[in-house]
Structure formats: C-alpha cells, structure tokens
C-alpha cells in the first residue's frame, strides 16, 4: 500500500509531455522496449520458469497457439485429432508444410519428435514429468506424427498447445546446449541477433517466416531488461523505450490519461487463492462452516479496488473467459457478521487462532500488501491470524507437501493455469487429495471431487469437459474445497500511439508478434 502511494507521488513528478517516439528509417525501423523480468533460458526444452517464455516466444513456435481472443487455433499443425485405435489413445497431427527455421532448414515431424525426446529426458528437461502419460511420439512421415498415450489421453497437454516446440534437430546436434543458448534458432517471426545478459536482447524480423501476413511491421527490436518499476517508467517517459510491461498498478490511471500513450490491462496466467488446511483434525478449518466463514470475511472487491487499483479480476472458481466459467456461480458476499455466526455455529463463538502464511516476494504486484489486508479482514471477523511472512523459496517449500504437510493454517497461494485459464492442471495439484501423483499442494480430501478431477484429466472433448469443470466448480465452491479463490491479477502494458501493437496471450502477453508502426499496414 505504502509502496503504491510512493509510486503515485513519484509518478506525479514525472508526468511530462512525452518525447518523440519511434524513428522510422524506412524499412530499418528499430523499436526499443523494456521488460521487467529476464528469462534465464531460451531453449524451450530446458525451461524451468514461466518467465522463460518471454524470449522463447520470439523464436519458437508450437503446434497450436492462443490468439488475442484467447481462442486456441492451429499453428504449426495444419490439423490434429484425438482418436482411439486398438485400445490406444492417440493424437494425430498433420504439420503445416513449407515452414522454415531461421537457418533455412525445413521443419519436419522429426524435429518435433526430437523435441519430445529432449523434453522427456529428466537429465535435460525440468518438465520431463509432464510426459509421464505419453508412451511415444511417432513419426509417420515428414509432415505427420502421432502422440501415443500410455492409457487415457492427458487433457493437460491441450492448454499447453500440445507442448511440442519446433526446434531444429540438425542445428541442436551441431551446436549443443551452449550453442543453442548462445544463438537460438526457431521458426518464429524474430531471428536472434545478440544478447547481453541482464541488459538486452536484440532480434531482427525473419523475412522468410512461413506466414508473411503475420510478419512484424518493424525490422529490428531491442528488449531492455529494467527490473525497477520507477526506472522502467522513467525510461518510457524519457523516450528511451517505446513500450513497457508491468506498469505499476498505482500508475495505470496516469498512463491512461497521458496523451500519446496506449494502455492494455490483461489477465495474467496466475490464479490466486487462499489455501486452507482442511486436513488437520485439530484445525477448525476442517469444518466447512469455518471455511465458509473465511470466504465471507474478506472484502475482495475492496482489496482489488483500493490496493490493486482495479488491477485484478475477482474470481469465483474459474476465471471469466476460461473454459467452464459459470457466470451463475456468485462469490461469497463480504459479510463479517455471517462469518462470526458461522464460527459460532461451528462451536467457535470466541473465534479461532490460526497461522496465516503470506508471500512477500513480488511475483505479482502488491502481493504482500494484499495478503496482509486479507489476514486483517480475517482477524476482524474472529479468525485471528498470526501472520508469517515468507519469501518465495520458503513459501513454496512450505506449500509443497509430503505425507505430513507443513502448512498448518491459511496461506496466500497461487497457481499458474496458463493464458486460457484451464483449471485441469491446478485442480489436480491443489484440489485432488494427496497421493498417487496427485495433490502435491493439496490440503483437502474429498473422494467425490477426486474422482471428478481424475475424469477431468482425461476428458478432452470441449463440451463434456466444460460441463465437468462447471460441476466441479459448483461443488468446490459449496464445500470451500481446495481453498478460497481470490482474484486473477492483471498485467498492464503501455506503448506510444506511434506504435501499433496487438497483445497475444503467449508469454503472458509479451509476445511481440503483432507490432509495427501505427501508420504501417496491418497484416
């Protein structure tokens, strides 16, 4: 909160007429943008963090993609289908022809199989576990492949765009891991030029891109890394950069009012919630009335309005726009009297004492302040919080459980569900009870919901899948199972109106695909 006020004051000092933006040098247009965070990996088969996508999305592409409308569409896949053959579930993919890597090699199914082999190798890939339900990726021809499942199909592959990246096998074998990191080559609309770690990456338009209509409208792009909010904003104000991400929430309104600036606030891939330990027999949170008391105790709308400056979307279970979102499902109303009444009915007329764990690392804006506000609301309603502040490493170690979970109360938690907001993977992790490869962050045990989540994991057909998500969401809401959803944060991007920019959801909206000069033709 205090930080927000300071930022607002600082912003008022630096509200100035904006200097001239991009210089158009004919076809040699060069745009400089700034990101707040820097990826550590560019190779999609070795990635370990969501932030890595920021650079990966420049060079590499997948079989499917999500468009600006958040609808998934075929991309490098000309077509694909899920089917059963002799009792084996498969996804058959036909590749787009004529797609070339930046070194001129043509993309074939062998490259995608090579990606699969790298991704499932735990010695190389940190995502190897994701392929545990897949027996093989078979090449049927240069432009045809099959993903073969061990048992029922894994629907979690779908929101990941089938999770295969177009990487050039020949080049990888030639230059090795270090060579790839030093000079990545993919099929994407940008070619690598240079990188100075913790400073910048420079890329150039790939003129032989397979879809000439989707080519960026600028020749060269430099991405600067500026982690400090005020400095990034200053860089924009001084004209040193023409586009920035992560505009601090306290300054979004000022940006919106500034002439010559365009702003877009977009939902991030994180979904935030209050995790409640309903397993501990000594804990009052095992009683559904106490969990409902928690849900009634916090004024989430006020938190979004006053702490986040409106930069959050209130969620009930599934976020608006995501598959299976049910607009009829209403959040628990803010009603502290009702909370106290529920506590009394549960036999806790004098309230309860509980450990409340708060994440202090700014993975999302003002996370620490939001947590403190939520815990203050709980305390006011009789759920007295003993707040424990944790940095990210300690927080994630506390949340990840084994047979004896450490998190013994309430924790401010989050789970990335991708741009599409598909809850399949997150619910498998924090709603399904712990055990047999499920519920690594779960503090709930409900056999009926377990069964439904397991069915969801193998339901690929969109119609039944959405119906099942709605049904799980309804029960989850009613039973306050797997925590209390709070909000989905928004990330704000700002650019000069001399630029044309359409945000695409990959890489948390930092995909610099649809960018050009405002007066250049729209692809």
């Amino acid at each position, binding site marked *: 909160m205090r930080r927000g006020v300071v930022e607002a004051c600082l912003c008022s000092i630096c509200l100035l007429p904006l200097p001239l933006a991009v210089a158009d040098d004919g076809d040699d247009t060069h745009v400089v943008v700034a990101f707040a965070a820097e990826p550590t990996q560019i190779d999609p088969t070795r990635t370990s963090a969501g932030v890595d996508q920021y650079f990966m999305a420049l060079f590499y592409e997948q079989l499917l993609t999500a468009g600006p409308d958040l609808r998934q569409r075929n991309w490098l896949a000309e077509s694909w289908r899920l089917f059963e053959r002799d009792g084996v579930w498969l996804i058959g993919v036909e590749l787009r022809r004529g797609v070339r890597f930046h070194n001129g090699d043509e993309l074939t199914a062998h490259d995608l199989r090579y990606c699969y082999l790298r991704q499932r190798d735990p010695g190389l890939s*940190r995502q*190897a*576990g994701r392929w545990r339900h897949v027996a093989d990726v078979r090449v049927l021809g240069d432009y045809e492949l099959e993903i073969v499942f061990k048992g029922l199909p894994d629907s979690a592959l779908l929101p990941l765009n089938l999770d295969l990246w177009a990487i050039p096998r020949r080049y990888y074998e030639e230059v090795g891991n270090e060579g790839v990191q030093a000079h990545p080559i993919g099929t994407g609309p940008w070619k690598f030029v240079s990188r100075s770690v913790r400073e910048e990456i420079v890329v150039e338009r790939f003129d032989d891109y397979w879809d000439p209509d989707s080519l960026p409208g600028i020749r060269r792009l430099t991405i600067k890394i*500026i982690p400090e909010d005020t400095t990034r904003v*200053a860089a924009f*104000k001084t004209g*040193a950069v023409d586009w920035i991400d992560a505009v601090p929430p306290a300054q979004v309104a000022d940006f919106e009012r500034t002439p010559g600036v365009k702003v877009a606030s977009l939902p991030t891939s994180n979904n935030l919630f209050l995790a409640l330990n309903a397993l501990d027999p000594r804990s009052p949170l095992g009683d559904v009335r106490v969990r409902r008391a928690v849900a009634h105790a916090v004024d989430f709308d006020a938190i979004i309005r006053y702490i986040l400056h409106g930069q959050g979307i209130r969620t009930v279970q599934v976020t608006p726009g995501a598959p299976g979102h049910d607009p009829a499902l209403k959040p628990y109303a803010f009603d502290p009297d009702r909370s106290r009444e529920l506590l009394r009915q549960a036999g806790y007329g004098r309230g309860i004492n509980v450990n409340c764990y708060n994440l202090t690392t700014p993975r999302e804006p003002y996370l620490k302040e939001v947590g403190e506000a939520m815990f203050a609301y709980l305390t006011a309603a009789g759920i007295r919080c003993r707040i424990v502040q944790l940095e990210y*490493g300690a927080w994630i*170690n506390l949340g990840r459980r084994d047979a004896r979970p450490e998190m013994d109360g309430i924790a401010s938690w989050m789970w990335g569900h991708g741009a599409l907001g598909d809850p399949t993977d997150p619910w498998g992790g924090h709603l399904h009870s712990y055990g047999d490869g499920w519920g*690594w962050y779960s503090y709930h045990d409900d056999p009926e919901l377990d069964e439904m989540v397991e069915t969801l994991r193998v339901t690929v057909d969109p119609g039944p899948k959405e119906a099942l998500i709605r049904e799980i969401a309804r029960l989850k809401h009613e039973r306050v199972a797997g925590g209390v959803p709070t909000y989905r944060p928004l990330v704000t991007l700002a650019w000069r109106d001399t630029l044309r920019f359409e945000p695409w959801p990959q890489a948390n909206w930092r995909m610099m695909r649809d960018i050009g000069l405002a007066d250049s033709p729209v692809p």
Partner: protein
Amino acid sequence: MRTYLIRRLWQGAVAVLGALAIVFVAQRLAGDPVALLLPMDASEEDFAAMREALGLDRPLPVQFLVFLRDAFTGDFGESYQWQAPAMPLLLERLPATLELALAGLAFALLLAVPLGVMSAVYRGRWVDRLAKVLALLGQAMPGFWVGLLLILFLAVRLQWLPAFGREGPLHLVLPAIALGWYPVAAMTRTLRSSMLDILDSDYIRTGRVMGLPERTVIWRYALRNAAVPLATMIGVYFANMLGGAFVIEVVFAWPGVGRAVVDAVFARDFPVVQAGVLLSAIIFVVVNLLVDLSYGLIDPRIRHG
C-alpha cells in the same frame, strides 16, 4: 614485510574458507532449491531425480568437500537457473561492478576530501556547516532513494542524463552518484576530525612559523598525515561497493555482480551464491591487504613487521 605478507595471506585464506563454509551450510538450511526449479505438478520421482542430478542427495559434509575439490580446479558448478557455469556468469559481470564501484568511490572522494579539509580549516564557518548538512543528508538518505530522485529530476524532468543501462560514460554518472553518496558523509566527518587533530600538532605549527605557504601546509603536510584513517575507510567502502551495490544495480538496471548474486540467493541458486561469496570474500581480503600496505606509503613511520 615478507613474513607479514605471508601471515596476512594465510589469515585471508582462512577468512575466505570460513565465509564459504558458513554460506554453504546456511543456504542449505534455508530450504530445498528443487521446488523452485520444477513445475508445481512435478512428482516425487522428478524431485528425487533432480536432487540426485544436482548432488543434493548427498550428506552435507560430502557436498562441501566435493565443492572444495571442484573449486580448486576452477569448477564452481553450474547455475541451477541459468544452466551455465557459475563463475563465468559472475566474472563477465565483474567489469561492470568494478566500473561502478570505482566511479562511486571517485565521486565520494571528489566531494569528501575538499569538504573534509575545508570544514576543518574553516571550523564553525559556513563551509563546515554545509559539510555537516551534507553529512546528515548522506547518512539519512538511502542510496536507492537518492537514485530514484536523480532519475526523476536529472533524467526525466531535465533529460540531461540517461536513466538506466550501461552504454557509455554518461550512463555511469547517476549510478555513481547514488552509490558514492552514502560514504561521502562518513569520509567527510572522519577527514575533518583527523585534520583538526593534525592542524593542532607541533610540526604544522613549525611549518607555518617557517613561512611555508598555508596551501602547502594544509594540502601537502596536514592532509597526508590525516589521510591514514581515510585510507582505511576507502578500503572498507570500496569492498562494500563491490559487494553491496545490488540496490543501485537494480535501480539503474546496471548489469553487475551484486544483482546476479542477490537474484541467486532468492532463487536458491547455490553454485552462483557460492561463487559470488568466494569472489566477494577474495576482493574484500585483497582490498584490505592493499589498504594496510598503503599505510606505509602514506606515512613512512608505519612499518609492517
């Protein structure tokens, strides 16, 4: 002198080893890095495989001995985050940090030496009062705040200097001021106090009686003798700037070692933290040794035995 050097180097090696051992154990007590490296839906088998791959499944003393053995061959392990050798990751950022620390120190000395001398010579006058105000401000305003103010006024409002990055000498000005601002206060006050003692001494009085110009008395004879405590401070602050410029590096998006090491601490990137601590400890030891040796140059009466 030779014995002194050998003794100091030996003490330095013990200090470096001690710092490494403490950091090695402390960061492992603080938590498991594997949960930060794997996706949230990773299985227990994935965790076990990753721990084994990183050598974190071995007993702590074994991990430490392996680390020492490898370190002696110049192998500090691979960064968990960057998946690249840890020490080169830091060494390639060292020039940026050295550049910033030297510029910050130069700024501090350029301001502190004249102010310290003048406030002692003109004790109680306006120069002295100005030095006191500056000292107060220097101690009261943290570097990151000074940095933000500099950005807002000199970069955004006046547009005289760039706000971020490392692309040329002009980019160095604001971070150097922000970094050098804090030690100015302490250096000024130390030099003033030391100068006041010296200016009251017999040999200064003798110099004046012999008709030496006041400028020579102050700047050549008094300052030289008053500079010994300042040299100590220079050593300490320079080493601190090398290791502690993190905040300034973040504010000005300066690609230095400090930022890399602090990021590594939060990411539980043990190899980078260990390499960073080793680098920092060696620099600290070397700078302090050089400072101690410089005493003899500043004041020939000081001998190392």
